[in-house]
């Protein structure tokens, strides 16, 4: 039986995908129902099972095409590992707390999930690659592009703020 703390963790994970509280709750509820139907089977790690179920359910709901990140193979291969290690490091990015919500609004569900797993669950890139069943190179490319986008967005916001100020 999932306890309240676990349910809240799963709810936050669902929010990282849906970015809408109500939709996240509906998603969680339907996945808890699915989980309960499987209760007669032995589930070794209920939290991992639930996260996978929530993810699959969300992909089904959004018909997959908007969720999945696509990158051409030649682009993946062109990214050198060490370079990507440096460029995909998100630790050096800074943000004001009130800007988080607007930043998340601009991201795709897949990107929000990636940030959630990295920042909140504190998974490494390798762990996320295993969980999401994507090659590490794909994930590095994605992080690289995500970082660039966030930086670009922040700089454009600053320009906007300056314009508003002046």
């Amino acid at each position, binding site marked *: *039986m999932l306890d*309240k703390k676990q349910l809240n963790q799963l709810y936050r994970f669902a929010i990282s995908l849906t970015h809408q509280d109500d939709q996240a709750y509906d998603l969680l509820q339907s996945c*808890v129902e699915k989980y309960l139907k499987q209760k007669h089977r032995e589930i070794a790690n209920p939290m991992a099972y639930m996260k996978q179920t929530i993810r699959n359910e969300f992909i089904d709901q959004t018909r997959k095409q908007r969720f999945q990140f696509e990158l051409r193979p030649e682009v993946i291969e062109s990214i050198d590992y060490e370079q990507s290690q440096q460029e995909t490091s998100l*630790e050096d990015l800074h*943000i*004001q*707390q009130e800007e*988080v919500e607007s930043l998340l609004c601009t991201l795709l569900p897949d990107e929000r999930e990636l940030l959630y797993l990295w920042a*909140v669950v504190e998974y490494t890139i390798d762990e996320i690659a295993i969980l999401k069943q994507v090659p590490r190179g794909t994930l590095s490319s994605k992080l690289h592009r995500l970082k660039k986008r966030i930086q670009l967005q922040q700089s454009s916001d600053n320009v906007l*703020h300056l314009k508003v100020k002046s």
Partner: protein
Amino acid sequence: MKHSQKNTLDKALKTHYEAKSLSADQLDTLMTMQATAEENLLTRLLKDFRGYRYAFYATACLLLMTLVVSFSLLNRPPLAERIMHEIAYNHQQEMPIEIASNSLISIGEYLNKLKFPLINSSSLSPQNWQLLGGRYCSINGKLAAQLKVKNLQDNKTYTLYQAAVGSDISKVLTAAKEQAIEGITVSIWQEKGLLLGLAHSN
């Protein structure tokens, strides 16, 4: 426009998500759903057990029987001892002879279902022993011969047993053995490829 101090991205995201939590009603709904499902599961398991109870009882009986058989097999006495008990039992029955003769050849011809020829044992010299007759008997589940012989020294009737030696017997009966079983002295040994046994009442 006043801006708060910037956080690292991970800290900011953590703060953002930690502020999100299910309402008390939502938590209650999910917890109730789970509790109900647990109850239903228990009910279904009980129902399933009722449906399969005969299979369960049959399996339990089979298991019990297997345990009993295994236990009795493990506690069986050694083969040589079992044969000696069987010989003592055969002797105690005092079954009448089927053919009365003092000729081993004649007895052998009569007991023609035996898969081995009867032999004169070197342990029973003709000066001291007189052959009276014979019949079929069973030793260790196989057809064997029970011969009645008279000891001319003590004037007592003995029963002499001759049976084919299986590989199991030849392994355990490397030397002659003698044992008193319920007032009957039984000795067994191997001779000329046969198992021989001699029994007499004390």
